[in-house]
């Protein structure tokens, strides 16, 4: 069939061109995202308590909500874990779905549950509930908008109406919006003394304002032939009407709202956030992509909106991109494209040095782009997307893909040499076809076999799950498609090209021909010496396993472990915590001072711009965008030396990359305490103190945190309340809770249009003194013409309460996580020691039978992933063995071929150690991949040995002839793979660090394995020949044709 295809190369070229065009189109249509989904889909549900206490809310609604959430599991959505947090003022549910659940399905299911729950909750709670997806993989877009001439409120009022309608049209964006930290609202500040004077409570005012804001729609009224909608408008349409609104008290008295409260249109006072760019107040344009959307398209669409509407926006408006995923993707794609280009150039260089001739190298080099483009078709068929990981896979495969073409080409040249010696012509098409066909047929099986062994190692990967599959799945699939297609290209397209361009002329000598011949000679001499040594068999077998044993016991345990590498960055991130601030303005001033001091220290030429965000009156962050990444570490060090923690100030300085692959947090020690009541939290407190005193861990996190809190409780006097109710008072406990809440946090009543802007109406208590207990105790209440303090109706007590409760599977839990500093990689050893210390001191930590403590493996995702990869490694070795046995039908031969595997693994471990790299999912994948690559060289050697044995060669001659025949292709294929992986091993460019361990593993592992293969395998093959007592060539050769006779005489000479 191959001959038939090769007999009409033009038809083949047309088909291939069409396929390539379709491949380019498929590649263009592939969705692009930052990363594959490396975290389980997770949805958050937040429910405020309103006037309920945490305990009451949990009892009345909490268990119901948990039960309804647990019922979500069905065919398409399965829940892994539900964590419920009952905090001081609200309940928070984190619902984690199983791997593979669609993000949009997960969100939809929780939204349905929330909708059904909300009907059972009081309105003020139901209105404030929130559901959102915790999808840290999707990335986001953020840009700051500011002007040195226009204040941000005015700027917002100008640009918001222009940009919002356009932003709403962006189909890939979810809720693209411009965030104004100085948003105004209509504030209704109730006067407590006026409320007492008229004996009215906030609930009455709230209900009447909400009712007045409602509007209704009726049916159509016919006016003549036309119908018009009957509508009942709200009775408040503007600020003046709101002020004049009458509040009805006891159906008799009408008081204007402006007499009971101060109403103004002003800054949202409970919003304490601010954003600044280069010191100027800024707005933030923010957008998340929809689930499954193309984030690159989303970013580009937003930038297009800003460009298209620029002429309508104020001239003084400036835009600074804070996070632009399309830029990160573009620069990563560019960087990876460079890697592919370098791999191609390296391959071309090697081919030129060893083969020579422009036509020859072009024939081999087309392999790389062809296999990549055609693999886009396969990727499109299984709905893969292009992300940094899958692009990395294509870059990885670039160097490997050319191997098959090289082997085919090399064999074609060998056959051509023989034809030339026999003076056979190559002018006619049929002659060229015959030569090429014979050459390809000879190596077809080894090529298919070697590609199969490379690909077969990925089969076990298909059975991995969870994090392994999430992180490596796309990479593995990209390599599989690209490499499989390279086999087709090598066996079909490359020969077809040679059929067309082959001629009788002698092939141009390669530049390294002469040096290579000398090298070949030295190699043969050395091999001959080694083969003749005593104990060679012993050393040949022992060296691989001894090396594996040594590296396994000495290097492997000390290699630092991580899930995946982190990319480079050009942002420095500084978080400032201040414990002595009294107001938001104070915090704002502190942040500005810190920014000023930091900029005075750093070289101004290195800083592009700064972005400042105040979160609340005690914390905020400053971000420095550096012009060049190379200055980042030095700048970070300067800032760390300048800003040291003090009693009232805490600084956290790190680098930040919005393009960072989001992964599970890397804890170094993890304990879960289960129990109930006060004893649970006291146990956690004792354990934390124990860990702190020990000093091993620099940071200890308790979840839930801050559980020993003092709060005030009001215990109503039952007799007093009874009497009040019998006397007809409508005062209730929820009124008191309402008053306390309103003094802290405004209550939203609705929206109203003011100055062409929809603003929210918020009601609170004017007198902030009532946030203090001494004043709240004396809140005035009018009971039958007497103004009494609230404390007359009950008792106020300061009690220690549990501020936040974490419930999982119906059990209360506290989790302690501990972290070492960044540079310490011995965490597993330290964790074991700490576990023993805790076990020896358990009696002092746990003092109750109601509490139990469990020390867990802190990075179970990583451990599970590495275990799965270890299993995949063993399985892949087994599959290679089986495949090779099917081919060679000899256990001894297969064992010899596979002797390269321990050599490769040892080489990887040594390389990771020398280059201070990590044992990560990527380097583990590199080991698996390397196994498939290293056996290829052995397969080639063994295959040609068997062939030459059939032709009558034996003993040392057999081995030397075989190695001589295969030395050049082995060196070429190894060098193309090694040099092709070199750019990846250097870890340059955006995203380079992510794949660097993989590059190091394959690159240096292969160097090591190839070097050893060229000696160990021939020695073992010779030993095998010896063991069969066949050392001398037999008298008559086996069936030979004319060509073979000549070849044999060449070898025997």
């Amino acid at each position, binding site marked *: 069939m191959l001959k038939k295809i090769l007999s009409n190369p033009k038809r083949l070229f047309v088909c291939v061109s069409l396929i390539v065009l379709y491949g380019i189109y498929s590649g263009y249509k592939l969705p692009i995202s930052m990363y594959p989904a490396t975290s389980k889909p997770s949805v958050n549900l937040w429910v405020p308590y309103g006037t309920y206490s945490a305990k009451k809310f949990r009892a009345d609604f909490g268990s119901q909500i948990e039960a309804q959430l647990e019922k979500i599991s069905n065919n398409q959505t399965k829940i892994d874990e539900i964590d419920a947090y009952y905090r001081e003022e609200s309940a928070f549910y984190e619902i984690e779905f199983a791997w593979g659940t669609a993000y949009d399905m997960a969100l939809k299911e929780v939204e349905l549950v929330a909708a059904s729950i909300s009907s059972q909750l009081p309105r003020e709670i139901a209105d404030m509930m929130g559901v959102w997806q915790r999808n840290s993989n999707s990335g986001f877009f953020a840009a700051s908008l500011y002007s040195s001439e226009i204040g941000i409120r005015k700027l917002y009022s100008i640009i918001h109406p222009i940009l919002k309608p356009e932003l709403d049209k962006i189909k890939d964006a979810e809720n693209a919006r411009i965030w104004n930290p100085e948003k105004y609202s209509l504030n209704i500040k109730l*006067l*407590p*003394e*006026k409320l*007492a*004077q008229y004996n009215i409570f906030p609930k009455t005012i709230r209900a009447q304002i909400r009712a007045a804001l409602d509007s209704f729609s009726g049916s159509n009224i016919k006016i003549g032939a036309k119908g018009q909608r009957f509508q009942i408008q709200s009775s408040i349409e503007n600020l003046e009407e709101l002020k004049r609104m009458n509040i009805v008290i006891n159906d008799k008295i009408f008081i204007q709202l402006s007499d009971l409260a101060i109403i103004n249109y002003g800054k949202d006072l409970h919003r304490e956030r601010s954003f600044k760019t280069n010191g100027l107040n800024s707005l933030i344009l923010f957008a998340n992509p929809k689930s499954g959307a193309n984030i690159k398209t989303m970013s580009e669409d937003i930038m297009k909106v800003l460009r298209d509407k620029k002429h309508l926006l104020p001239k003084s408006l400036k835009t600074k991109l804070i996070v632009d995923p399309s830029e990160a993707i573009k620069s990563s794609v560019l960087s990876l494209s460079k890697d592919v280009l370098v791999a191609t150039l390296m391959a071309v260089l090697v081919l030129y040095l060893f083969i020579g001739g422009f036509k020859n190298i072009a024939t081999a080099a087309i392999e790389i782009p062809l296999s990549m483009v055609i693999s886009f078709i396969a990727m499109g068929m299984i709905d893969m997307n292009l992300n940094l990981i899958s692009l990395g896979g294509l870059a990885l495969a670039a160097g490997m893909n050319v191997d098959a073409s090289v082997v085919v080409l090399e064999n074609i040249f060998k056959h051509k040499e023989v034809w030339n010696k026999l003076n056979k012509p190559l002018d006619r098409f049929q002659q060229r076809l015959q030569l090429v066909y014979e050459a390809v047929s000879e190596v077809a099986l080894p090529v298919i076999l070697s590609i199969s062994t490379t690909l077969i190692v990925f089969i076990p990967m298909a059975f991995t799950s969870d994090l392994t599959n999430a992180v490596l799945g796309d990479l593995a699939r990209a390599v599989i498609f690209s490499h499989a297609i390279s086999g087709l290209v090598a066996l079909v397209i490359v020969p077809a090209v040679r059929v067309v361009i082959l001629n009788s002329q002698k092939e141009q000598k390669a530049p390294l021909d002469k040096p290579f011949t000398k090298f070949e000679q030295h190699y043969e001499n050395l091999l001959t010496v080694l083969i003749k040594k005593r104990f060679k068999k012993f050393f040949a077998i022992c060296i691989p396993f001894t090396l594996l044993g040594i590296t396994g016991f000495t290097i492997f345990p000390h290699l630092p472990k991580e899930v995946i590498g982190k990319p480079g960055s050009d942002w420095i991130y500084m978080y400032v915590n201040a*414990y002595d601030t009294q107001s938001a303005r104070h915090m704002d001033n502190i942040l500005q001072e810190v920014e000023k001091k930091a900029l005075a220290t750093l070289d101004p030429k290195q800083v592009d711009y700064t972005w400042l965000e105040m979160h609340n009156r005690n914390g905020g962050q400053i971000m420095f965008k550096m012009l060049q990444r190379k200055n980042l570490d030095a700048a970070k060090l300067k800032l760390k030396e300048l800003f*040291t*923690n*003090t*009693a*009232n100030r*805490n600084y956290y300085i790190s680098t930040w990359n919005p393009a960072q692959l989001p992964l599970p947090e890397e804890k170094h020690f993890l304990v879960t305490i289960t129990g109930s009541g*006060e004893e649970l939290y*006291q*146990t956690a*407190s*004792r354990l934390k*103190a124990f860990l*702190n*005193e020990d*000093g091993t861990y620099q940071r200890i996190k308790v979840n839930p945190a801050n559980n*020993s809190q*003092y709060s005030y409780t009001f215990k109503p*006097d039952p007799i*007093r309340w009874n*009497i*009040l109710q019998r*006397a007809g008072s409508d005062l209730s406990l929820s009124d008191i809770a309402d008053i306390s809440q309103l003094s802290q946090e405004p209550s939203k009543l609705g929206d109203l249009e003011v100055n062409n802007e929809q603003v929210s109406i918020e009601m609170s208590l*004017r*007198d902030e*003194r009532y946030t*203090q207990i*001494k*004043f709240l*105790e*004396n*809140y*005035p*209440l009018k*009971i*039958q013409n*007497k*103004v*009494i*303090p609230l*404390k*007359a*109706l009950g*008792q106020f007590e*300061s009690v220690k309460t549990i501020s936040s409760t974490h419930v999982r599977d119906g059990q209360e839990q506290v989790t302690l996580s501990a972290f070492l500093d960044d540079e310490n990689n011995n965490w597993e050893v330290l964790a074991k020691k700490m576990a023993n210390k805790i076990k020896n001191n358990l009696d002092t930590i746990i*003092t109750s039978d109601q509490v139990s403590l469990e020390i867990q493996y802190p990075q179970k995702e990583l451990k599970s992933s590495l275990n799965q990869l270890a299993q995949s490694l063993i399985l892949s070795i087994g599959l290679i063995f089986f495949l090779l046995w099917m081919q060679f039908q000899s256990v001894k031969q297969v064992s010899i071929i596979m002797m390269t595997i321990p050599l490769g693994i040892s080489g990887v471990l040594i390389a990771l150690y020398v280059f201070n790299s990590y044992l990560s999912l990527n380097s583990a994948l590199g080991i698996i991949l390397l196994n498939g690559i290293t056996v290829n060289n052995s397969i080639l050697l063994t295959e040609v040995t068997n062939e030459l044995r059939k032709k009558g060669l034996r003993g040392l001659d057999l081995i030397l002839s075989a190695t001589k025949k295969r030395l050049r292709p082995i060196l070429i294929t190894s060098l193309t793979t090694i040099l092709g992986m070199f750019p990846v091993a250097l870890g340059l460019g955006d995203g380079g660090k992510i794949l660097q361990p993989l590059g190091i593993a394959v690159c240096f592992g292969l160097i090591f394995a190839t070097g050893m293969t060229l000696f160990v395998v021939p020695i073992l093959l010779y030993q095998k020949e010896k063991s069969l007592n066949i050392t001398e060539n037999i008298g008559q050769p086996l069936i030979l044709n004319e060509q073979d006779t000549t070849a044999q005489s060449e070898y025997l000479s």
Partner: protein
Amino acid sequence: MKAILILTAIWLIPLYTFGLEKSPTVEVKTVTKQTIEKKLFFPVEVLSKVHSEITADFNYIVQKRIVKLGQKVKRGSPLLSLRNQDFSQHYEPRVLEAPVTGVVASIHVTNGQYISKGEKIMTINSPQELYGKIEISAVDYQRIKPNLKGFIQFSSLDGKKIPVKIKGIGTAVDPLTGTVSGELEILSQHKLVPGLIGLAEITLEKQKKYLVPEKALYYIGKDPYLAFIENKNQIKKKKISLGKRFGESFEVTQGLQENLLYVTSSPRFLKDGETVNFTPPASRDKNVKKDTL
């Protein structure tokens, strides 16, 4: 040999310096008793000593309102002309006279209106003769005494402090509210009107207590600890007993010794025996803490 020793020393110095973690700098306070002013707070209603609520003794029709809202009237001066609607009174006209001297505070009727017996007609009070009325709960009754001084603040008067004194305290507990009424004498000239509601702050007494800020406390289990600074600036954590809370501080009932230094805030957890740096506080802490029970 010398050169080797010098070179070794040069290497060791930075190793020594950088190998040791720098001692943290902490904030400290001296253990000393603080003065706490005990205060009590009450909502207060401003009332007039002259308060006359005029109600109808028969059924009437209002013929004419003679006075206006806010008008000063003397005792006996005419307020309204009425026509009696009761048969027994022969439908005679009547002029309603002011029972007290004061100011017309409210008028509840209009010309031509029919008013029933017992219905409110008018209120007269005297804005010059005002007093503050407080309701004292059972909790505070034992502590409050006549002649104690303080001040009232009204949110409508932007927090201006008006001095007052407790003039008298009742003896009867209202069964509905559970409070005893008290009267405040307003001591200064001001623009108050009857019906205003404010908050009174009355100073009781001063006490001396040991107080520590809440942020200085370490909890191990349920037990509170303080980190004291002992010899050579080393930390030693000791258990203490806490009493009542005063704002952001706690009274310490056991475990403190006068003039010891303790840590109020630090950049991180401090281990026992760890050396710290600090700036000694001022020679005497003169904290007069104004707070309530």
